[in-house]
């Protein structure tokens, strides 16, 4: 059995905010709309309610985020992905849905510190003053797609694994000491 590795092997940078590449996390894309059993199916795997539009429900290591009117992002420990997919397949059997393991297609970063928002402000066209607790914002980080939310005195940023190096470079550059906003 090969060991799962995150995109950048846990790279980190200490500037005016701390950047840490974390993971690997188990991530599942769940697409479904108007499916009756959906809230129960999600509750069974993340023990959260189905998030309202643009929200993320976090429960310890697990979470369910609203990505679009017919798409959710499930986060679970990496080792629990297969069991989670099996549970979803069982609860949603016969319902029109798609659940797929995207854990290895993603990279996850933590941006932490008092001025963590300043790091992201330079990269995304988002009004961070208006970002609510528990709000999942899909946007771009410079030239690539990213999703971000505030969590535990900082932000979690998710991007595609193929651009992990680019995003680490962006975050590192943006967090250079002396470049606070």
């Amino acid at each position, binding site marked *: 059995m090969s060991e799962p590795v995150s995109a950048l092997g846990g790279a980190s940078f200490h500037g005016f905010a701390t950047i840490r590449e974390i993971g690997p996390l188990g991530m599942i894309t769940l697409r479904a709309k108007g499916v009756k059993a959906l809230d129960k199916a999600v509750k069974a795997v993340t023990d959260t309610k189905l998030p309202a*539009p*643009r929200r993320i429900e976090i429960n310890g290591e697990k979470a369910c985020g609203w990505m*679009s*009117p017919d*798409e959710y992002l499930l986060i679970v420990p990496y080792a629990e992905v297969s069991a989670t997919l099996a549970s979803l397949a069982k609860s949603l059997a016969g319902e029109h849905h798609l659940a797929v393991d995207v854990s290895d297609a993603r990279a996850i970063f933590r941006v932490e510190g008092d001025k963590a928002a300043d790091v992201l402000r330079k990269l995304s*066209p988002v009004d961070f003053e208006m970002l609510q607790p528990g709000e999942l*914002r899909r*946007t*771009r980080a410079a030239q690539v*797609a990213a999703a971000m939310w505030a969590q535990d005195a900082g932000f979690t940023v998710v991007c595609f694994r193929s651009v992990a190096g680019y995003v680490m470079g962006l975050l590192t550059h943006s967090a250079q000491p002396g470049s606070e906003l």
Partner: protein
Amino acid sequence: MLILECPYCGVKAEETELSPGYEAHLKRFGPGASPEEFEAYMFARKNPKGVHFERWRHTYGCGKWFLAARCTATLEVFGTYPAQVSEPPADIIAKIQARRPGWQPDGKVTK
């Protein structure tokens, strides 16, 4: 800078989070149409100075296509609405007429 509110997720998306889809409410002409109709469907596009309806995609967000009514001369945005319609909804037309008295949905202006 153009800011359009995505009607699916409610994000006030800045233009760089969106992809343009050009003119909205095109009527499709396919098999059985005359060459002239098909050519017009494929290539003829309105280019008004004033009220215009466009398709936009919330590319860096929820990924959905939506429609927007805006003024090409002033960049004023009258409203955005879901794409599952074949013509501008009444509330959007009312919003446009409130700002452009006499404007009619076919693009003509009555006095």
